[in-house]
Each structure stands twice: as structure tokens, then as C-alpha cells.
């Protein structure tokens, strides 16, 4: 898995590529915790290039959402593709996040 970060005008876009699982999620968790700690007002997580996510990956995203709820920041998941969308549905998290299946940011 690779994670890249791009900052612009008060928002940070985290782009993840590769499987998001028990092995790789700690790296993403560290980056997201850092953004929450810095009170970034708008965090975007681009999952377009993530072909697989498990409960460890979902837990990482939920943890980030709890952080942004505390800091009143906006968290957007974008590019939630057809391979991982069913996992969000299975965990009923597709209605919990601000989530879009394409990778464009509004």
C-alpha cells in the first residue's frame, strides 16, 4: 500500500493505493491521526486505487471520523469503487460517512 498527502487551501487529500488491511492500515492510521491532531478543517481520503479493504481498514476510517467529529472538521471519502463499496454496505458504513463513489471533490 502507498499513501500520499497533498495539502491545499485548508484541505488535505490523502490518496491510498493498494490493499487496506491489517498489515497496511497502521500507516494510514498514523497519517490520519496526525491530520486530526493538526486540526485540518477538511480531510479527503481518495480510495479509488484501493482494490480491497477489511475491517482493520474500515476501523481506521471510523477512527478518523471520530476524530474529525471532535474537531468539527469535514471528512470526505471519495473514489469508493465497486470492489470495496460492498464492504461499506456490509458494515452499514456507507450511510455513516460523507462518501462518493467517484473521485471528484466538490
Amino acid at each position: 500500500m502507498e499513501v500520499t498527502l497533498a495539502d491545499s487551501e485548508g484541505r488535505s487529500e490523502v490518496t491510498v493505493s493498494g490493499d487496506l488491511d491489517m498489515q497496511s492500515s497502521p500507516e494510514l492510521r498514523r497519517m490520519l491521526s496526525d491530520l486530526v491532531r493538526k486540526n485540518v478543517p477538511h480531510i479527503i481520503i481518495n480510495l479509488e486505487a484501493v482494490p480491497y479493504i477489511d475491517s482493520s481498514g474500515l476501523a481506521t476510517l471510523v477512527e478518523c471520523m471520530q476524530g474529525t467529529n471532535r474537531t468539527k472538521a469535514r471528512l470526505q471519502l471519495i473514489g469508493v469503487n465497486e470492489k470495496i463499496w460492498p464492504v461499506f454496505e456490509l458494515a452499514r458504513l456507507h450511510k455513516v460517512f460523507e462518501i462518493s463513489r467517484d473521485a471528484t471533490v466538490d
Partner: protein
Amino acid sequence: MSEVASDTRTVEIRIPSDPAFMAVVRRLTSAVGTLAGLPPEETSAVTLAVDEACTNVIKHAYKHDYGQQMILNFELKPDRLELRLRDYGTKCEPSRIKGRDLDDVRPGGLGVHIIRKVMDEVEYDTGHDVGTELRMTKFLKAVKTDGSDTSR
């Protein structure tokens, strides 16, 4: 040599209790699911459930000791795929294993929910001297000659 072929085919692997090997588990499960005749979306779901079962063993039975082993066994039968995951760690207590309420949004506890939601039967055998055996079954949907599904 017997002229009657067995209607059960078995695949078994021994895997280190190391998250780095979960990609191997997923590839194998996906291949076995396809061979068993599961449709692609069910193969993906079963692959996720097996991954969750293995990571639960790493977390709870072996408490993140990545130097242990577990055995994953698949039995492909005409009407079902049976899976057994054997570990030699701390025995689980089935009465304490429950998926969490999904309305309670928090990290953790999703793995058990996913396993129960995806698999048709889930049973924890704690009768071994050491460790636990998790048995899971996924039934194949019968397909009629016109291509439509029939309920089993």
C-alpha cells in the same frame, strides 16, 4: 483404483500468524471460491470473511505473536464450501463472541459481524486440548438449466 471419484476435494495450508501473509490467504480463498462454483460477488465476500477469521486469530488467539501457525482447510463439496480454521492459541469463548450493534459506530468488532453475515453457518469448536477450530460453511445456490437461481 476406485472408479468412483470422491465428491469432496480438499485444499489445506499452514499459514504463519503474520498479517503479511493475509494476501496469500486472500488469493487462495478467492481461487478456491471460484473453483467451488461461487459467483464472483460471493467469492469476494467469502474471501473477506476468511481474512477476518484469520486476523481475529492473530489478534485474539495469538495476541499479535506473529511467530505462530494456523491451518486453513477448504472442502469443496457439490452443494457447499466448508472451511476450517485451526489455531493453537488462547481458546476463544464462543458465548463472548458477538458482532457489535452496527448502529454503535466505532472502530473494532466488525470482523465477527462480517463473518456471520457472509457465511451460512459459523461454529466455534473449543473441544480441542489446545486452541480453537472455527468451522464455516457457504452453501452454493443451485442453478437451474435455464440459468436462474433456485433456493436450496
